[in-house]
């Protein structure tokens, strides 16, 4: 799969039959999907698979616990953290309210400073635009800064199909790419890998990795550094995403930790930046808020190591050609939704993933989208709601809003205060409502209807409670039920169920009141 120079071979999109077939492809548990926002089984089944991977759970448990601790420490030392969150939330709310004007202002300012602005309605348009630019530069290789937007549109796979190799230069993203894998975390895409797995991937796929490469982190990093240095020096075109775009000045911002982004953003002659339209901030001053919120929330650092800001083209300094591709890809649909739109406030810090007890157990791949975790569970189904012609339970993404216990840990840490639990509940209602017109018998709906009838009247509820006490004997001598018939078997597979009591509270209270209470 790799040439003697270590350039990853041109990858074909998986048609479902490849991936793991060839002896050379053991690493990627997820073949590259046609839709980066909708792949694999529905969440419960996908999670069942990933839960079996003990190595994955160990890696994830260790990694998320470490990063949670770092975040908590550096957030705890900021006295006005809550005020900062409020400010971040307020700026983003304003951006969503003024988005058309702000986008026009951004375009105007980027253009005035020598950049070229492109508008892409969807993934296909964005991919076509980037491909045409690379072709015009006669580039058969582009270097990339880690970018969620380009993951979302499957840019690397599209470029590969067009004969252009896209080289990921972020260390973790490189690991994922070399393994022909999919990312499982927004910030640390290879979080599901430990260092011995990474050593194996480098040895077998990098092409120019030292033969005696060990799994010492420094050695691994040095091998990647040497490998990537050659790429930076030869690349004519770089592709990046953007963390922020400043409407007032036309300035774009990328924050990263390794310096690979700085290389990509400054060395090649041509720079193409793909940015979701929600990434705007109105003014340069607004960056002050987010550059405090983002590093502390994402990597647990006080300050971001490499913050690159550029505005259009500067003659004789940096890329001499700059293209900005503004990507919609479902975002205006999300924006139109009063409840769901705050999902667009997300600054991709991934703090919600690191605190999510569900994510920690199942990992990112179970979500079947490049956006996993709590934010993925609200963003992915909204972005894809009007694509693919599927609705309600026919769409595997309809299982995502249920991939949460609503524990609320995500809301607590979100630097822009996205009320993820409330949006999850709202999306659940939407999925249920989308199925209402169907004639097929839905056992959940039948059960919920029946429960609604019983639980909306004290008299009926009392009768039901009394009836339940008849089941007291089911508990046998120790008062528990260990093997219940379906659907309760989903419960009793791993937990006992208490048998109903001899007397409901309502019955006890009636006697208690007759006795005149305690006094």
């Amino acid at each position: 799969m790799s040439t003697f120079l270590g350039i990853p071979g041109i990858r074909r999109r998986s048609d479902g039959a490849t991936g793991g077939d060839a002896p050379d492809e053991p690493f990627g548990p997820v073949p590259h999907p046609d839709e980066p926002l909708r792949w694999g089984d529905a969440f419960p089944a996908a999670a069942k698979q990933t839960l079996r991977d003990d190595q994955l759970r160990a890696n994830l448990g260790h990694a998320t616990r470490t990063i949670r601790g770092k975040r908590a420490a550096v957030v705890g030392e900021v006295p006005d953290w809550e005020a900062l969150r409020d400010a971040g939330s307020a700026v983003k709310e304003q951006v969503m309210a003024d988005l058309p004007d702000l986008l026009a202002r951004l375009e105007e300012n980027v253009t005035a400073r020598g950049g070229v602005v492109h508008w892409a309605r969807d993934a296909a348009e964005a991919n076509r635009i980037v491909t045409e630019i690379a072709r015009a530069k006669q580039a058969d290789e582009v270097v990339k800064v880690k970018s969620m937007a380009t993951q979302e549109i499957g840019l690397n796979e599209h470029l590969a199909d067009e004969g252009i190799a896209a080289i990921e230069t972020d260390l973790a993203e490189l690991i994922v790419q070399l393994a022909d894998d999919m990312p499982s975390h927004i910030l640390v895409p290879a979080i599901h890998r430990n260092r011995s797995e990474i050593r194996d991937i480098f040895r077998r796929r990098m092409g120019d990795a030292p033969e005696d490469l060990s799994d010492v982190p420094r050695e691994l990093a040095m091998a990647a550094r040497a490998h990537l240095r050659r790429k930076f020096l030869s690349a004519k075109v770089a592709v990046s995403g953007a963390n922020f775009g400043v409407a007032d000045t036309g300035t774009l911002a990328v924050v990263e930790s390794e310096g690979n982004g700085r290389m990509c953003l400054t060395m090649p002659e041509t720079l193409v930046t793909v940015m979701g339209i929600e990434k705007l901030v109105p003014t340069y001053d607004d960056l002050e808020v987010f550059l405090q919120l983002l590093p502390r929330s994402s990597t647990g650092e006080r300050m971001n190591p490499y913050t690159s800001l550029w505005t259009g083209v500067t003659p004789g300094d940096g890329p001499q050609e700059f293209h900005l591709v503004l990507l919609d890809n479902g975002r205006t649909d999300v924006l139109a939704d009063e409840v769901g739109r705050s999902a667009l406030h997300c600054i991709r810090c991934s703090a919600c993933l690191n605190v999510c007890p569900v994510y920690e157990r199942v990992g990112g791949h179970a979500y079947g989208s490049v956006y996993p975790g709590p934010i993925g569970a609200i963003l992915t189904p909204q972005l894809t709601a009007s694509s693919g012609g599927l609705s309600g339970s026919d769409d595997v993404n309809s299982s995502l809003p249920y991939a949460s216990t609503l524990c609320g840990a995500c809301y607590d840490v979100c630097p822009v205060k996205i009320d993820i639990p409330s949006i999850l509940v709202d999306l659940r209602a939407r999925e249920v409502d989308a199925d209402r017109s169907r004639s097929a018998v839905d056992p959940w709906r039948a059960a919920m209807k029946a429960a609604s009838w019983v639980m909306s009247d004290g008299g009926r509820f009392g009768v039901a409670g009394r009836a339940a006490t008849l089941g007291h004997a089911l508990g046998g001598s120790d008062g528990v039920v260990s093997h219940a018939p379906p659907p309760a078997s989903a419960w009793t597979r791993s937990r006992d169920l208490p048998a109903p009591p001899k007397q409901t509270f309502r019955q006890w209270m009636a006697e208690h009141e007759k006795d005149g209470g305690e006094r």
Partner: protein
Amino acid sequence: MRIALAATCIADTLFPGAPRATVRLLERLGHDVVYPRSQACCGQMHINTGYVDEAVPVVRNHVQTFAPVADGEWDAVVIPSGSCTGSVRHQQAMVCRRAGLDDLAATADAVAAKTYELSELLVDVLGVTDVGAWFPHRVTYHPTCHSLRMLGVGERPLRLLRAVEDIDLVELPEAESCCGFGGTFALKNADTSAAMLADKTANVRGTGAEVLTAGDMSCLMHIGGGLSRERAGVGTLHLAEILASTRSEPTALPRARSGADSVEVAR
């Protein structure tokens, strides 16, 4: 004070010990407890599973049942559950407005403003932390997610527990991590739920506690179900049951399955 009790549907039917203890505790502290018999459920299960239309009559029944608190007939409504209190405070009015029932929504807001989770009622409204309880056992406390994060009850339950005479209160490692219940999540995503539960029960067992307590019977049903399956020898009691315990009327240790034979490990 005249306090109306919303017993919660799950405790009313399956775990009557929790609301019984709430009644005993509040009466011991000198308050009148009223149990409006038209009550049934707050609607949380329906809402959180997406069946909001079906939740409307359930919510209406709850709001109408407890509406007298808004007119001063009672001083407060108490719910021995963090998540049900959370649903009353954060969801009921939303459900009414979504159904176009603005008047009902206004009543729901008024009722919610006088509705308290048990530890909130005791500490904030009644101003007590030492309720005169006696419970000579080793206990660990799980701060349920909705108590902790949606309501923000903070240290209140722990302050109440620390004041219990002769209690041996031990800290639960990774206490703030969800137990994996999540209502219908436990059924819809049973495997993930079980994986979360296994970590929680391991932490509970590590404390050597005889009793696990919390402010929510639903979470306790879940963790207790796991502990029972593992025959961990750890029982569960609602916070109210420990606070209601006195020397003259001690709360008995809950029955806890134990023993190493025929253990089925939840995974």
